[in-house]
């Protein structure tokens, strides 16, 4: 399996992502510069966390308009797997690859800590090592992780099994108290309809991210 990591000016988890992929696949991903217009042949595109363009204007907005993203959107629609983490989640919603948007955390603060996430859906590409109903513990590190979607979109997310993770406690309880940042329905990560795009607001050190990558069928976590 081949992987590519997109690098924007201001990305700062690109190395973390590279390390995680390298440790999992046994070989390095290609690093693709934002100004490029073509992707190398790849089975997985990773959009790493960080502060693309300083998160100025809106998180992910300027990155979402960079040349390489047109290509990423095209490949994603043709079924290439896309993993968008943290700032990558924001980039993915900004391009319209995924529905909704991310707002400033409800408490207005950057949040860096380990959180429990409930695995909400099974997915044939990702989440290979977890099953629906599990809880997993991942670090988050974000300032704008507060996921928003309108009523109609939320119904669709629930109805079509597009919710990947929800903020929970260690026993998998999802409620207002476990909602660290104000996200609608505690949503921490989502898939697209086809299930080939996963985005989540967790950050994830390489060590944690590596856990759960099992070869071709199940990617990353």
């Amino acid at each position: 399996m081949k992987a590519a990591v997109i690098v924007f000016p201001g990305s700062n988890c690109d190395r973390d992502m590279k390390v995680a992929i390298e440790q999992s696949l046994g070989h390095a991903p290609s690093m693709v510069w934002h100004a490029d217009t073509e992707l190398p042949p790849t089975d997985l595109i990773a959009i790493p966390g960080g502060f693309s363009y300083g998160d100025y204007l809106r998180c992910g907005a300027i990155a979402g308009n960079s040349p390489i993203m047109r290509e990423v959107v095209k490949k994603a629609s043709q079924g290439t797997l896309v993993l968008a983490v943290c700032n990558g989640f924001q980039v993915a919603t900004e391009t319209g690859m995924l529905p909704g948007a991310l707002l400033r955390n409800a408490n207005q603060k950057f949040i860096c800590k380990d959180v429990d996430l409930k695995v909400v859906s099974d997915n044939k590409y990702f989440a290979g090592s977890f099953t629906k109903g599990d809880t997993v513990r991942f670090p988050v590190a974000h300032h704008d992780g507060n996921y928003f979607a309108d009523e109609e979109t939320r119904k669709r997310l629930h109805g079509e099994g597009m919710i990947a993770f929800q903020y929970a406690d260690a026993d998998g309880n999802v409620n207002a108290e476990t909602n660290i940042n104000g996200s609608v329905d505690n949503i921490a990560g989502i898939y697209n309809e086809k299930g080939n795009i996963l985005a989540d607001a967790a950050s994830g050190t390489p060590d944690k991210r590596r856990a759960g990558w099992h070869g071709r069928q199940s990617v990353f976590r």
Partner: protein
Amino acid sequence: MKARVTISLKNGVLDPQGKAIEHALHGLGFDGVNDVRQGKIIELDLGDIAKENAASEVERMCTQLLANTVIENYSIELLD
């Protein structure tokens, strides 16, 4: 030709910044205040551009970059 774009969150989108400001104002004793919303304002110098093209040009900037229409409304004012 200059333009001013005002971007605000759509009704129904919770505004965490506005809420935090409201809370802080209450803390300072401004009790009567409510419904605080925060938006953005972007001012641009469009350079030499015909007035009749300016509005559509700024409109394109808004939809392509300046506003996220999933959550935001925008309005454009041309100033000269």
